[in-house]
């Protein structure tokens, strides 16, 4: 029986790996990421592979996550049919540890205000939350050098 388990794991290995790829999610999932309690400052970035200024600033979030103490989430707004492209992009750039999800909610007007009422819908956009204090900051547009740390300080204090 144990052997069978090992065999199954071996056979299904690729399937398990696949399961670790970027998940397609609905707004509920994003809503719970935004709302869940926690100790660390949470940074949620909205991007897409087709958005050049977004792609350009992704390394900022990778550095941030590697520094520890900050919870980073990347929310891809690519179309769901481009999931393979997103998976490939995430693996090529080694963004696997950045909690990447693909938000499959095409009826944009139904949820943009739920993220932040000040958001026009343009990307890149970044939401920074301190779950403990409820403090939050929403930044629409590109993040300039050094600004991310400043925003995080603002929300932390």
């Amino acid at each position: 029986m144990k052997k069978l388990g090992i065999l199954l794991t071996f056979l299904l290995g690729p399937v398990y790996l696949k399961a670790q790829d970027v998940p397609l999610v609905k707004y509920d999932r994003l809503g719970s990421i935004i709302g869940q309690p926690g100790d660390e400052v949470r940074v949620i970035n909205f991007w897409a592979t087709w958005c050049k200024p977004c792609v350009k600033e992704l390394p900022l979030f990778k550095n941030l996550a590697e520094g520890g103490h900050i919870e980073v989430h990347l929310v891809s707004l690519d179309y769901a049919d481009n999931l393979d492209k997103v998976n490939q992009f995430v693996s090529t750039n080694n963004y696997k540890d950045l909690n990447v999800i693909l938000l499959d909610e095409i009826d944009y007007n139904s949820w943009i205000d739920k993220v932040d009422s000040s958001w026009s819908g343009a990307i890149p956009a970044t939401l920074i939350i301190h779950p403990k204090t409820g403090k939050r900051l929403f930044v629409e547009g590109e993040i300039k050098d050094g600004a991310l740390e400043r925003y995080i300080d603002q929300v932390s204090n």
Partner: protein
Amino acid sequence: MLLLCFLTLFAGKSIEEKGYTVGDIVDNFELKSVSGEMISLDDYKNEKGIILVFDCNTCPVSKAYKERIKELHDKFADKGFPVLAVNSNDPGRQPGDSFDEMVKYAEKNKYQHTYVQDLQQEVARSFGATNTPHVFVLKKSGADFKVAYIGAIDNNSRDASAVTKTYVEDAVNALLKGNNPTPDKTKAIGCTIKWKEA
């Protein structure tokens, strides 16, 4: 009193930064179209309104809407609501949106609607346009144009056949019947306008 002055000052500033809201009168502007002509609101004085779209050559969302924007013009130009597409991207940051590229793009895609360049980005700023495509349906009101609808073209950028809410079409049809559009404001994911580096 001083505090009140400050508050008024700040309120004024934020309204200016955010651009027009529904009901505002639009300031006239003059921009060069791909045909080489200078276009201003005076050119639309015999129309009932304008479907003004902040658009560009390069944004994938704009590309997804390209045919739908052309269809809006086909459908409503004769009824008094032509499409006016305004490209406000800084060609320094987005070379694919230079004037020459706009001319080529309009030709290649057989644009029947007017396509103008907002090189100084002043029109995008005064409207408070943020992304492409970002629509402002304007309604003629006396000698002025007033903003009647701001937002998305419809509720499915990916698939025109899966659209269930045709916001702009509904807004123009409402205006043609003498009604106010509902909703008069929607939001959509789009490419941020490529502003000049400060």
